[in-house]
C-alpha cells in the first residue's frame, strides 16, 4: 500500500530525488495502468529491495530487477521483472520459488498463480514475480495478467536446452530443477541439473547432471574428498548425506552424472548404472 497512499504527493519528490529508475522501459500490459515510477535494481543493491531474499537471486547471477506497480479495477499489484542473464538461471530461480508446481502458459515457458496474492511467470531469461498489494489476485485475473506480460516480454517459450542433458527414461514430469550452488547441501556440488526418477518396484529417487562446463572441476573436487570404487568399468565417487542416504557420481561421455538417496551401495550402483545407460 505504501506506493499508493502517497503517490500523488511523492510525484514531485520522485523527480527531485532522482531514484534508480525513472524513464520506463517496462512493457505495456494490456488492461493494466502503470501507477508508479519504475525502479531498477541490480546485484549491488537488490538487498535494499527484497532484503535477505536477494541472496537467492545473487546465487543465480541476477542482472537487474525492474519493478513497478500496475492497477486494474480495484486490484493493484507490484510486478518484478528479474533479468537473470540466461534462460537456465531464470528457470533455476523460478523453479526454486515455485516449488516445481507451475503449469504451461501460452507465450511463456511456465506460470503459477497462487490466489489471492501472487503469480509467477517464466519466459526466456526473465523471471516475473507479481504480488498483490490491494485487492485480490484471483486465478483468472492472475492468469490474464501473466498472459499479457508473457506476450509483451521477449524470450524463448521452451525450457532451457540444458535440461535435455537429463535422461528421459523414468523422469517424473515437472520434477526437473537447477541448483547453481550447494546442491543437496554440499558445497562441492555446483551447477547441478536434477530431476526425480521412478522405476518399477523402486521408490522415487533423484538423478542429477553437472553442467558440462563445470564437470571437470567438480569431479576433481569430489575426487579429493569422496569415497571411490570401481564398478563395471565405472569409477564411482560417493559419500553419505545425513538423513538422506548415499549420493554417488560417475563420469560418462555425457558428463558427470549422479544419483542420491540410496539406502546402501548396492542400491546406489543399481540406480547409477541405470541412470547413465
Amino acid at each position, binding site marked *: 500500500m505504501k506506493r499508493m497512499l502517497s503517490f500523488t504527493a511523492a510525484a514531485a519528490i520522485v523527480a527531485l530525488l532522482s*531514484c534508480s529508475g525513472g524513464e520506463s522501459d517496462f512493457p505495456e500490459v494490456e488492461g493494466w495502468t502503470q501507477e508508479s515510477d519504475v525502479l531498477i535494481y541490480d546485484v549491488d543493491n537488490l538487498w535494499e529491495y527484497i532484503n535477505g*531474499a536477494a541472496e537467492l537471486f545473487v546465487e543465480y547471477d541476477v542482472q537487474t530487477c525492474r519493478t513497478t506497480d500496475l492497477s486494474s479495477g480495484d486490484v493493484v499489484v507490484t510486478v518484478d521483472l528479474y533479468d537473470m542473464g540466461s534462460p537456465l538461471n531464470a528457470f533455476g530461480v523460478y523453479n526454486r520459488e515455485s516449488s516445481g508446481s507451475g503449469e504451461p502458459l501460452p507465450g511463456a515457458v511456465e506460470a503459477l498463480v497462487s490466489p*489471492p496474492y*501472487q503469480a509467477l511467470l517464466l519466459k526466456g531469461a526473465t523471471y516475473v514475480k507479481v504480488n498483490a498489494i490491494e485487492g485480490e489476485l484471483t486465478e483468472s485475473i492472475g492468469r490474464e495478467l501473466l498472459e499479457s506480460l508473457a506476450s509483451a516480454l521477449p524470450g524463448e517459450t521452451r525450457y532451457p536446452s540444458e535440461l535435455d542433458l537429463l535422461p528421459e527414461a523414468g523422469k517424473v514430469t515437472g520434477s526437473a530443477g537447477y541448483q547453481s550452488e550447494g546442491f543437496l547441501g554440499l*558445497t562441492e556440488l555446483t551447477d547441478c541439473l536434477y530431476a526425480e526418477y521412478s522405476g518399477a518396484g523402486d521408490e522415487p529417487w533423484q538423478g542429477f547432471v553437472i553442467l558440462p562446463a563445470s564437470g571437470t572441476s567438480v569431479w576433481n573436487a569430489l575426487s579429493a574428498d569422496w569415497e571411490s570404487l570401481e*564398478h563395471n568399468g565405472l569409477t564411482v565417487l560417493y559419500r*553419505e548425506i545425513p*538423513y*538422506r542416504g548415499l549420493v554417488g557420481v560417475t563420469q560418462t561421455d555425457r558428463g558427470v552424472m549422479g544419483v542420491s538417496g540410496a539406502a546402501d551401495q548396492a542400491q546406489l*550402483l543399481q540406480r547409477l548404472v541405470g541412470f547413465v545407460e
Partner: protein
Amino acid sequence: MSSQDHVSRRRFLKSTGIAVAGGGVLSHKAKHLDAQPLQRTAPQVREYRTLGRTGFKVSDIGFGAGFFNNTNVMQVALDMGVNYIDTGEHYVNGQSERAIGEALNGRDRKSVFLTTKLNISCGGSTKEQLKQRFHKCLERLQTDYADCLMIHMTPQIEQVKHEAFHAAFEELKAEGRVQFLGLSNHGRQQSWWGRTEVAMEDVIGAAVEDGRFDVALFVYNFLQKEQGERIIQMCKSKNMGVTLMKTDPINLYARIEESLEQSRARNREISETRSRMARDYESYVARAEEFKQRYGIQSEAQARAAAIKFVLSNPDVHSVCPSINTFDALNTYVGLSCEKLTDEDDSMLDNYDKLLGRYYCRHACGTCESSCTNHVPVNTIMRYSHYFEGHNREKHAMQKYANLGTARASSCLDCPGHCETACPHGVPVRSLLVHAHDNLVLA
C-alpha cells in the same frame, strides 16, 4: 556389491564431520522417521542465552534461512543443538519455511524458537490479510504457532506503529498462534520514492520506545560497531531479545597482488599523480600481507571466525543468524559456539581495523559523495572494484563500470580530493578510486 567392486577408503564424510552411527542408512523416504546420531567429531552448540524478556534459552549460533531450501541441513543443525531459526514469508518465496517445516516434523516443537517475518509493504497489509498470510506461514512451517513474528525490513519509523500489523498480532497472540513481536532492519533502504536515510538506530529506537516489541534483528559487526552497540544498549534497557545479521564483514582481497601487477602492466608510463596513488594502494597490499603473516592467516574463514566471536563476546547479544544452506557452512558456524574471543582474536580484529579498516570504504556510507565536485559515485565504484578483486567477477564488474552513466574515477586524477577530507574513516578515497578505474577499464 559385485566382486568387481573395489572400495578404497578416503576421507569419508570429512567435509561434514557427520556420520550415521551403526548399520544401515535410512532410505530417502524414511528420512524423517528416525533421528540419526552425530559422530562425536561433529560440532555442537555449547552455549545458550536468554532471549531477553521472551525468557527462551536460544543457541548463540542461530540459523539464518534467507536462501535456505535443504531440509537435511536443518535436521543436522537441530541435532547439533541449534534452536533459534530465523526465516521469513518471502525467503525463497516460502520454500525456506517449507524446508524448515519438514525438518521440524516429528521433533519437539517447544525445543525450538521459530521466528518468521511479514513484509507490510506488499502482499496485502490489512489486519485480515496479514492474519491470512501468517496462517499460510504456519501451514508451510507445519506448526500451530510461531514463537516470534517480525515486521520485515521496517524501512520507516512510522511502520513501527503499523496499526493493522499490531491488531493482527494481538489477535494471533490471543489465539495462541504467536507469542512474541519483533522487527528487523538493515539500515538504509531504497523505497519507491528513492533512497531514504533512516538510520537503523532510529527505527529500532522507535520500536524500543514503543514498548511492544520483544525481539530485534539488525546489523552489528566489528567494523561498524558504534551504532550497533547503541542499539544493543537500547534493547537491553527494555530487556528485548537481540539477534544479529551481517556479523563477519571480512575480505582480504586474495587476488590483490595479481590485480596490482596487471594495473602496473597497463600503465607503464604513469604520471606522478597516478604513481603516488599507486604507492598508496601498494601500501594497502603490504598491510594486508603484514596482517596475514602476523596472524598466520591462510583463509578469510579464520578472520571471519574472530569476527563472529567478537559479536558474541557481547553478553547482550543473544543469537547471531548467519545464512546457512550447506553442511560446510553449518559446521563452520556451529563450531564457533561458545568460543571465546581471545586476546589474539581481539588483537587480530583491532589490527585488521587499524591496518585495513582505513581502506574499507564503508558499505552504504556515501558520506563523501556530496563533497565531490565531479559527482563521482564513490560507493558504487568501490563495490565494482570489490567484485573485481574480491569476488573474481572481472567481466561483470567491468560491464557495470562501463554502463555507469555518471562521472567515472578517471576524473579523480586531477582532483584535490575533497572526498578524503570528508571521509570520517580516513579512507584514501582517490587512490582506491584510481586503482579501481585502472582495473575496471580495458588497457
